[in-house]
Every structure is written in structure tokens, then in C-alpha cells.
């Protein structure tokens, strides 16, 4: 089974090479994210990111902002930031960490500089579903200072280690550990028997 047996494909490959050269030349000349220079449109890329990271981002944003509308805004801003800066990552883990890092910063900026809406759809839903046990826990988490809450969210919801949380939040790992530990202590004080943040 020699490779030479398939010599009759040579013309196809000449065309293939030509098309690749033209494509790469255009990619160099053209900087806009459309056409041959990029394989997917902006909306398609945003759609992919939304499908992969949407839930993680909106949950993180909600943990800061406590309402869906603001959390949705953060999700949108995070996707836009990704598309505009087109960062390159070694793998999906780093990509996700970057998205959460941006979402966390955007959320904190919003709290600092904008008026945040006061509805809490999650609490309403828990109450409507008669999940008082969960509503009690959510109320306790909401009471935590922001720095404890973000560590608790990334640790218990996203399963990150303290080292990874430190990278995402741009803090020292020892600080994250201490925030997490103090967050737990506070939750323990409030929740007592209902505490399950082991």
C-alpha cells in the first residue's frame, strides 16, 4: 500500500494549497473578524461561548448582584470583552478561568459604580417552591461580605481549589483560604444545623 498509488490527487492538492495561501494572505491583510479571515461569525462565537460558560458566568454574577437583569448584563459584557480582546488560551480551563475573572471584575465594578436592581428572583423562586431550607441558606450567603461570598461561590459551586480561586480573583492564596475559612465560620454561626459547607 504505497502512498504513490494515490498520485491522481495531486491536482486536488494544488488547488487546496492555492486556496490555503489565498486564505492566509487575506487573513494577514484583513484584521476584521469576518469573511475568510475568521471561520466563525461574531454571533456564532458568542453563541458557542454562551453555551459553554453561560451558566457559570450568570451564576457567579448573580452571587454578586442578586438579580437576574444585572447578572444578564454582566454575561453580555463578558462575552463582548472576550470577542473584542480575542485572548489565546492553552486550554478550556484557562479560558473558563479568564471568563470568570472578567465576570467577577465586571460585577464588582457594577456594585461600585452603578445602582444595582433590588429584585431577587432566586429568593422568590425558592420561596414559591417552598424550599425554605434553601432560602435560609441563600439568605445566609447573601449576608456574607463580598470577599467571603466570592470565595465560597468559586469553591462550592465551581469546585475550584484555593490556588485557582486566588488566580481568578487576583489575590494571595493565603487570603483566599482565610476568607473561605471565615466565610464558613460565619455561615456556621448563622445556619447552625442547616450548615453543610464541609
Amino acid at each position, binding site marked *: 500500500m504505497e502512498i504513490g498509488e494515490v498520485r491522481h490527487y*495531486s491536482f486536488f492538492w494544488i488547488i487546496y494549497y492555492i486556496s490555503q495561501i489565498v486564505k492566509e494572505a487575506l487573513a494577514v491583510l484583513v484584521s476584521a473578524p469576518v469573511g*475568510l479571515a475568521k471561520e466563525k461569525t461574531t454571533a456564532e462565537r458568542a453563541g458557542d461561548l454562551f453555551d459553554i460558560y453561560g451558566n457559570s458566568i450568570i451564576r457567579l454574577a448573580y452571587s454578586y448582584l442578586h438579580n437576574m437583569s444585572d447578572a444578564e448584563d454582566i454575561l453580555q459584557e463578558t462575552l463582548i470583552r472576550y470577542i473584542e480582546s480575542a485572548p489565546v488560551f492553552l486550554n478550556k480551563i484557562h479560558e473558563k478561568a479568564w471568563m470568570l475573572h472578567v465576570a467577577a471584575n465586571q460585577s464588582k465594578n457594577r456594585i461600585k459604580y452603578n445602582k444595582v436592581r433590588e429584585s431577587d428572583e432566586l429568593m422568590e423562586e425558592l420561596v414559591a417552591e417552598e424550599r425554605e431550607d434553601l432560602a435560609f441558606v441563600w439568605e445566609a*450567603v447573601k449576608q456574607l461580605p463580598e470577599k467571603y461570598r466570592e470565595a465560597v461561590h468559586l*469553591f462550592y459551586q465551581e469546585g475550584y481549589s484555593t490556588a485557582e480561586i486566588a488566580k481568578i480573583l487576583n489575590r494571595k492564596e493565603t487570603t483566599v483560604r482565610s476568607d473561605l475559612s471565615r466565610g464558613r465560620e460565619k455561615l456556621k454561626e448563622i445556619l447552625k444545623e442547616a450548615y*453543610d459547607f464541609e
Partner: protein
Amino acid sequence: MNKYQQIMDQIEVTEDMRSRILSNIEERPSPSPVVIWFSKYGAIAACVAVIIGSFMIFRWIPDRISSFGKTEIPEEGVVVASAPELTEKTGIIIKDIEPIAEKADKTSYQVYPSNLVEIIYEIDGDTVRLRKSEGRKELFENIAKYPEAEKLLFNQTDTTIRGLEGKYYVAEWTDKTYSYAMEFEAGKSKDEIENLVSDIMKPSAADLEAINSGIEYPREDEYRDSYEYAVVKAPHGHSVYGFGSADHMGSSYTVLDGERVLMLADRNGYTCVIVLSQNKGRWINSNYLVPEEDAAEDTLESELGKTEKESESLKPELIKPSASDLEAINSGIEYPREDEYRDSYEYAVVKAPHGHSVYGFGSADHMGSSYTVLDGERVLMLADRNGYTCVIVLSQNKGRWINSNYLVPEEDVAEGTP
């Protein structure tokens, strides 16, 4: 799933939200409309030129395209110097088949335009080819000339081997991303092919990345030169912790006694492994891993009558937890400072002053949270501060600070026992 996760599960993106956000992103003003115009039209023009060009050539030379589409192999590949260079050029991770590469008279490496990579070994007049390409496809043409096809499971890899009169000449298999194929001009037996397929499919360092669950990857210099299978030997015969990192023990996962793992890298007394049944990367205390060959020998030795005493003498080294284990099994206790850890850890027994129980605290300094630790409990002493000892209470598998006066080293207890 803890309550917090149950709460967060209530928050989900919706289809409405998706279309709203995507439409907002699409409608936002473009930063450089002139360039977009150029690129759009340039791209379209290029496409039209290529399509017309291709069409004309195919029309003029119809006999040359009669069998287009049957194979992935173009006429000529680009020859490179090594397997890593193949990976560098294509992004496809491929490594030499070590048992063959060692004996080969000549080895060549080629990459083809369809992102297919190939390694060819020539050994004593025989030729062995390994091909790999993205997607599911046939990588060798003319496989129909081998009428005997058999599907076999080689080390968790479904493989089709094709041959004639008891000898097999082609092996094909796929994983989630790639198609693989090998061709043996002189033919091979099933066993020989099984060994080769197992060797090729042995996870590479980079595979860890694909199957990880957010674990920290080893550094390049930490990877072993060759990977070996091992068996988990849990100290109490139940399970050990598999961590997300060798340094920071934050996330932990249960890995059962007897689990088969592939050892990839080492750091600070921890080994980065792939837990085969879970297909996940984890860092496990190296003391709990026994190379598969040794495990087999151990079993044989015990069958041959190794004494109970001999076995017992091996236990303490195996079950001694590291300082960092404390972090994984804590319940929010304060960790000792680095300088407070003992040089070596010892077992002790709790001697409660009234014979019932003592308090185990969350911290040596702040006695806020307290837990009951019963008289007679076995603990492992890790660190000391201000008359308190940080221990792991073995029956609870929790870290606690206990008044040092209530702890008696295990040896002393044994000596004091009539």
C-alpha cells in the same frame, strides 16, 4: 450536591436570554467598517477564484479525479525530523512506538496537507506504519484485500484488526477525537498488535489536559520518562483522597482502594495520576500507590505465607498522612503554621481526664468551635502550639486541636498496658 449548589442550579441561562444577548452583540457597532468591506469582498472574490480554478482543472483532467474522496492520503507529505515536530506542525500529539522505534533501522516522519501524520519504521525488511488524523476516517486504502476482520478490546480500546490466514496486517481504532491506523507489511499476531495498540494509547502527558477536572497540571520537568500503572492501596482498605493539586489541597475526590491508575508525574510526595475508572486526573499521596507489578508480587508473597508481623511492620509508613492532608480533611479548622509542624508524626491515644471525652477545637488560639473527641480515640499528632496539639482524629477523619495533656503517645499506652 450541597445546598449551595442546589440553590445555584435554580439559576440558568434561557433561550430568550441567549437570543437577546446574541442579538445585542451582533448589533453593536463594528470598530472598523472599511476593513470589513474589504475583507468580505476580498474573501468572496478569493472563494470564487478558487472554485472556478478548481472546476476548470477538474473538467480538463477528468481521469485524474475518478476516485476522489476514497482516501485521506495525498500524493506526498512533508518529511520532518521527529515525532515532536509532527505535533508542532499539526497540533496532533503523536509519539514514537517505543518497542518498535528502539529496533528500527530507519524511521521517517511525514505530515500531509489534510492534517494526517505518519510514522514509518523499517525493521529487518519489514515496514510498520502508524497514521493518525482528526475525525473518524479510514487512513489506509485497499483494506478490503484483507477479508478477515475482527473487533477486539485492547486495554479499553475497541480495535478492528484485518488480516489473512491468521496473520493481521492492519489495525484501526478511534478515540473521541482521532482516528488511528497501523499497517504491518509482514503481518503480526493479535498479541503483538494488542501490545502496540496499548502502548500507543497509553495516555500521554498532554492527554491529562483533556481528561482533567480542573486539576493543576504537572510542570514539564515533573513528568516521568515513562508512565506506569499502579494500584491504590488505601491505608484503611477503603479509600484515599485524590486532590486537584499537589500543593494546594483545596478540592478532593474519593479514590477507592484497589483502583487502577496511570502514574504520570511527581511532586512533593504526591503523584499525578489518571484514575482509569473515572478517567480523571488526580494528585494522590505517593505512599498510597503501589506499582502494578509490585502489587502482583505482594499478592503472591502474601499467598506464599508472609507473616502477619512482617505485614504489620509495613503499615505505619504507608498510612502516615502528610501535613497537607490536614487541609483536605479539615472542617474549617485553623491550619498550623509551617514552623509548627512536627518533623515526624506520631500516633497517640486520647486520655480524657474523666474517662469520657475531651474537646477538639478548631483553633489552638480561638476556642470558638468545639467538637467531642472520645476517650481512647486514636489520633495522629501533626503540630503543636501553646500546649495544644493539632491532630487528625482517625475515626472521624477530621483535623482538630486538642489539649496536649490529654494525648498519650501510642507506644507509651502499649507499654503501660499490662
